[in-house]
Every structure is written in structure tokens, then in C-alpha cells.
């Protein structure tokens, strides 16, 4: 689990850094990373809102920064506009990330800011996807279950949920994936 080790150091450095700004916020170096990684490596990167706004020259003032890709899914704006009423109000300012589980056709979105610690998050995921996650050990990862919760961080690396302090996790997590047993062994070697 070398990757995790590396990130621990990274995390520790960050934790001791003195900065102005709200805890958990990071610099916007995502743009650059996107331009470099898109397609050039195995790690897939999704173009973020910031990049798209810059490139089209139009500011999509209406849409909140929820990592929506321009023109995707390919549904005509005429069609999109008809359904604006549905959920916009309820979502507010949370940190929404997508959650997928190997073998399940659905994706869910959860708001990480709703939870205070890993335990709450795990319980919620277990409920949502009807599985149980086993116990987390710092060195060995998850034991006792086929399912392992992982997440993709800002750098595109896949990590075990629980390896970093909660606040760090909330600010760096881009999406969650509940992997199934056989896939877990590949963790840390690129997805």
C-alpha cells in the first residue's frame, strides 16, 4: 500500500502547513492537472466547471460549482430548462460526490458535509447500497467483508476510505466507489 503511505506523508505536511483560508479548502490547481492528465495517463480526469467556463468565455452563472461538464449528458438545453424546478432548491451548498458500487447499475449522490465522521458515512452507505463494510484496520485495510469503500482524490488516486483524517477526506474526495473483493487487490496500482 505504498500509495497510501505516500499520501500519509502528504497529508501530514498539509496538516502542519500554515495558511490563511478556511480549513479543508485547497488551491485551485485542478485546472492544470486536468489539461495534463486528460487521456495521457490511465487515470481518467473529468474536465471541471472552471476549465469549461474559461474556454467558452461565457459564465454559467446559474449553475453552482458541482463539477458539471459542459454539454454533458448530451441533452438539449431546451429540454433541460423544462425541469429546473425539480430539485435545485434542496441541494444548497454541500459537497456532493457520486457513489458507485461494483455490480450495481445505479449511482447515488451524497453530501459529505452532512456527516461528521467516517462512522456516520459508512452507515449511510451501507443503508443506501444494502451491504456491510467490515472493520477498518489502519495497516490492513478493511477486513470481514467483500466490499471495500474507496475514493478518488483530487490527484486521481484511488484510496481507501479512512486512511486520512476526516476533514482532509472531505476536501479531497471527488467520488466514492465501493469495490468488490477481487478488485481490491489492484488498489494502489492504478485503476
Amino acid at each position: 500500500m505504498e500509495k497510501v503511505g505516500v499520501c500519509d506523508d502528504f497529508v501530514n505536511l498539509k496538516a502542519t502547513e500554515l495558511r490563511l483560508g478556511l480549513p479543508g479548502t485547497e488551491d485551485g490547481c485542478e485546472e492544470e492537472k486536468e489539461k495534463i492528465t486528460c487521456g495521457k495517463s490511465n487515470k481518467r480526469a473529468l474536465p471541471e466547471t472552471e476549465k469549461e467556463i474559461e474556454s467558452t468565455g461565457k459564465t454559467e452563472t446559474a449553475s453552482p460549482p458541482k463539477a458539471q461538464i459542459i454539454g454533458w449528458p448530451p441533452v438539449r438545453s431546451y429540454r433541460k430548462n423544462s425541469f429546473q424546478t425539480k430539485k435545485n432548491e434542496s441541494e444548497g451548498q454541500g459537497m456532493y460526490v457520486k457513489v458507485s458500487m461494483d455490480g450495481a447499475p445505479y449511482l447515488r449522490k451524497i453530501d459529505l458535509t452532512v456527516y461528521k465522521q467516517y462512522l456516520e458515512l459508512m452507515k449511510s452507505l451501507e443503508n443506501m447500497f444494502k451491504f456491510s463494510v467490515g472493520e477498518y484496520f489502519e495497516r490492513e485495510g478493511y477486513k470481514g467483508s467483500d466490499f471495500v469503500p474507496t475514493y478518488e482524490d483530487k490527484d486521481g488516486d484511488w484510496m481507501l476510505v479512512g486512511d486520512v483524517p476526516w476533514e482532509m477526506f472531505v476536501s479531497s474526495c471527488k467520488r466514492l466507489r465501493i469495490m468488490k473483493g477481487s478488485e481490491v487487490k489492484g488498489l494502489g496500482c492504478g485503476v
Partner: protein
Amino acid sequence: MGASSTLLMVSHGHCLLCFSCLVTLIAHFESHLKPFLFFLSISLSLSFRRLSVSVLMGLRLPSKVLEHIISFIDANEDRNSVSLVCKSWFETERRTRRKVFVGNCYAVTPAAVARRFPKMRSLTLKGKPHFADYNLVPDGWGGYAWPWIEAMAAKTPSLEEVRLKRMVVTDECLEKIAASFKDFKVLVLTSCEGFSTDGLAAIAATCRNLRELELRECIVEDLGGDWLSYFPETLTSLVSLDFSCLDSEVKLSDLERLVSRSPNLKSLKLNRAVALDGLESLLRRAPQLVELGTGSFSDDLDQEALSKLAKAFAALKQLKCLSGLWDVLPEYIPLLYSVCPRLTSLNLSYATVQMPDLVDLLSRCSKLQKLWVMDLIEDKGLKAVASCCKELRELRVFPSGADLDETDVALTEQGLVSVSEGCPKLESVLYFCVQFTNTALVTIARNRPNFRCFRLCVMEPFAPDYRTQKPLDEGFKAIVERCKDLQRLSVSGLLTDKAFEYIGKHAKKLGMLSVAFAGDSDLMLHHLLSGCESLKKLEIRDCPFGDAALLENAAKLETMRSLWMSSCFVSFDACKILSQKMPRLNVEVIDEHPPETRPESSPVERIYIYRTVAGPRLDMPEFVWTIHKTPEIGVSNLAIKHCCGRFTFHTLYLISILFPLRC
């Protein structure tokens, strides 16, 4: 054409030949003309779709006769072939062509088209590339209708029909149409923008013989509903009216009177602002309607009003197409039951109908051929469709979530599998789904080898097969291998270069392909450009292609209508080279940053490449750059070069058959 015997080869992919007619016709001519010897030697080589006929003829047809024969030929592809035979055929054909179709408004100048087809009655034009629908083309890019309208007003004032798609149409355009074409009959604008309701008023007021006015999903500056009142009391010719994309309320009494005095009205599509009581009164006045788009379907109606509305629907004995149904309340769905058994087309994509109301409705639509619906239908609903709608030919399932990629909905790949199993005539699909599996795609391909159009949008970018975590290469391989008639394909999900190798190898009839977030390298583009023989339109976004494949396959680009690439890795350098290499291509770089400020090797934001004989266009905004300049190439060369495709000329002349029927 010499009097000596000439070998005429007929080779056309889409036509059947009526041999006895041909023989009779030629015999008929003989009796009126000098007795030339001719030999009719027919060798049939039948494949499933092609008929080849070799005819040896030593005959010169007088132009009146030729004109008469050619007047039977309707389809543009056939007419294009006819125009290739020789100069006199070209001349005769161009003087008799009434319906002109220009797939890319920048491929040729309006003046050239007006000059070539003086008898033009109907003009169909397409402007912006397809990806403009998804906001990938910045505003102001182009696609202006004005130069065309201006040219036609001057040269072909007997124009009666104008159909525009993805073009910028101003009020001036509409006023010009109204003022210039005395017998104007049909205006259909699809996904157009740039005009206001004032322009509509001009059309309404001036076009005395107006038959069709259709605004399909246009962006209109809505200054109010007055425009409808401009239809004069003398206008009784209306056959089709579609103002569903407008917001403002029109005066109901004006609409009622218009409908009452239009006995030929067959299609009426209202906007959301028309309430249910208005609908009832209109239906009463137009029981002959074949197509109906309702307004909002949610007002509070009392018993009496409800029963009146039910009666009005029941009276629509000819109704085949139903759409609209905004905000429809579940308790009002039974009002539609009486028309269901006759419906061939149902568009519920704006109606928030849930299961099981959907099933109640659809189970009554046994004749349904076209269904557009939202993913609220779920797998369960599609299973019901599979068992009830055996005539189904086209299915579109749109996402309903506000974020458009959330699923609170139980629609998975299984829904499409069911429909592919149960509906033997299904040939066109657009399906939005969060994730997919290879097994499902293989099953679908096996069930339905007759797909002509298969557009799958796996909404989660790079999503692998969610069961096996593998790419969807094998799934799409099955689709292109089995569906030999596939003309249009959209791929999505996690795909490697392999998938495109399969597409290049098998999709020989593919005309249009859309790709997003896929592939590993340049190889992917190379497979497509070197393999897909029939490819006309290719649109790509967010794929890791660079310069190599593009430059290597430059010649292919001239056989296509257009290529769109955005967020890929093509450099400005490559664009320059391509442009210099291929003078008959417009290579447009659409980029916020001027080329001087970005390093030559860094990727450009968007490229749009299309073949043209009009040279670089003169109406480009500041963010569009083309690099080359070419002299204007004449129209006659255009006809012959453009339509050449894969025909071999030599000393053989090509003639498309005289009585074409489309298979």
C-alpha cells in the same frame, strides 16, 4: 453524347429498376425518333441492396423527353447522380430540380445554388454542427440564414418552402421572406434562434397562402402573443401550426377563429400557456386533427369541463400523433384513453408521468410506432411496452433528474434489453442510462440486428461495464457486427481503441458517429477514418487524439460532410498543415485565444472541418480562425467532383435509373 453506342452503367445503392418500363419507354421513343439501333443488354447482379444494370444504348434523347423522364426523379441523391452523366443531363436536371437540400450552409455559396437551380421551390438548409445543441459551439459562430434568403429573393422568387435547421434567423429574414416570395407556403424552423415574435407576425400577416408554420424547439425572443392575431381573416389554407416553443399566451379567441376557418388543419401544436379549457374549445373546432400537441395539462377542472374534454378527445378519430402534455396530472391521463388505440406517435418526454400511469396509458397503444418518454418509465414500464407495442420502430428515453445524471429512477440496461426482445420492428433508439453492461449490448444486438440508428448515452463518463468493470468494447463490437444497416451510432462509457477498431472494421454503412470521453490514442481516430467507408459526419469530444491520425487521413475528410473535435489534442500546427494540404476543406479553429498567443503545439479548443467549394467564409466572429485562402471553384466542377464518391468514370457514364423507388 456521341451517337455511337455508349455503355451506360447503372449502379445505385438505393433504387430498384423496373425493367419492363425501361424497355417500353425506350421502345416508345424509337417510334418517334430515327431508328437507332440499340441493344439492351442487361446483366443483373443482385446483392441484397444493389441492382446493377448494364445498358448499351445508341440513343440521343431530345431534351424535352429527358426533362420529362427526369421529372419523375424526386430524391436528391438520385438527382445528384443524374447530374453526373454528362453536360446536357446536368443542364436538364438543374433546370428541373424543385427541392434543394444543402446539408452544410457553408459548403456552397447561396449565389451558386440560386444560379444552378432557377426553378427552386423548396430549400432545406442546415447550419451549425450538431454539437451546438449541447452548448459546445459558442454564440456567434455563424449559420446565418440572411445571405440565403437574400439570394433566393433576388434569383428564385417562386420559392415556396423554406426549412432551416440550427441557423440564425433574424426578424429581417422573416420579413424578407414574407415580402419576397409571393406564393410562400411552408416555413419550418428547427433549433433556430435570433428572431422574435415580431418576425412571426410579418409571416402571419403577409403570406396569403401559408400552409405550414412550425417552430420546433427554437429560441425565440418572445414579445407577447399578439403575433397570432396577425393572421388575416382571409387565411384559410393552414395545414400545420406549431408554436410549442413559445412562452407567451396567445389570445384564445384569435386561435379559435383561426382554427375554425382552417378546414385543412391537420397538425396543431400548442404552447404550454394554452390551458385545458382552451384545448377543449380548439379540439371541438378541429376534430380532423392528425397531430396534436397539447398545452399545459394541469388546470383544475370540474366534472362538466372534464366530461366535455373527454368528449372532445373521443371525437379525434384521425389522431395519430400526440405530444405536449406538460405537467399532466395523473388523474387526467384517462382522458387520453380514447385516442390511444389509433396513436402511432406519442411524445411524453415533457410529461412527468410516473409508473404505473405510464403503463396504463401505453398498454392501450397497440399501434404505437414512435415513443419518446422519460426514464420515469423504468425497466418495468419498458417491459410493458415490449409486450404491448409490437409495432414500435423508434424509442427515445430521456433522463428526468434535475442534474440529469442522477438516478433515483429504476431504469437500467434491462429496459432496453426488454424492448429489443419484444419489439421486432425496432430500428431506432436513443437511450440515456447511468451505466451499462457488455452482456446487455450483446443481447440487444442479437435480438435486433435491424437497427439503423443506435444512440446509447451512458451518462457516467468512462463508466465501465458495472458488473465486470471491463470496457464496453465487446458490447459495441456486437452492435456493429450484427447491425449491418447501421447508419447512425453514438457510443459512450469506458472504451478503448479496440472498440474503434471494431467500428472501423464492421460499420460499413455508418454515416454518422458521435464519440465522447473514449479511446486511448490516435489509433482510435485512425481506425474510424480509414475503416468507415460511408462516414459523412463525425463528432468527437474529450478524446485523446492528436495530430497524426488527422493528417494521415486528410483525404478522407473531403469525402465527409464534416468533422467536429473539441477538447482533444490537435495542435494549431496540424490545423495549418491540414488546411494547406486540403484546399477544399475549411479548417475552422474555434478558440478563445488567438493563435499567436498559444504555442504551436498546444491543443486547440475546438476544430470544425468541412468540405466546401465556397472557400473560407466571410462571416466569422473573432474567435474562429481559418488558415487558408482558395479561389472560388465553379459550380459545374462541384457537381461532378462532389458527388463522385466511389463511382468510377473512365469512359463510362453513370445513369441512375429512370423510375427509382426507394427500398
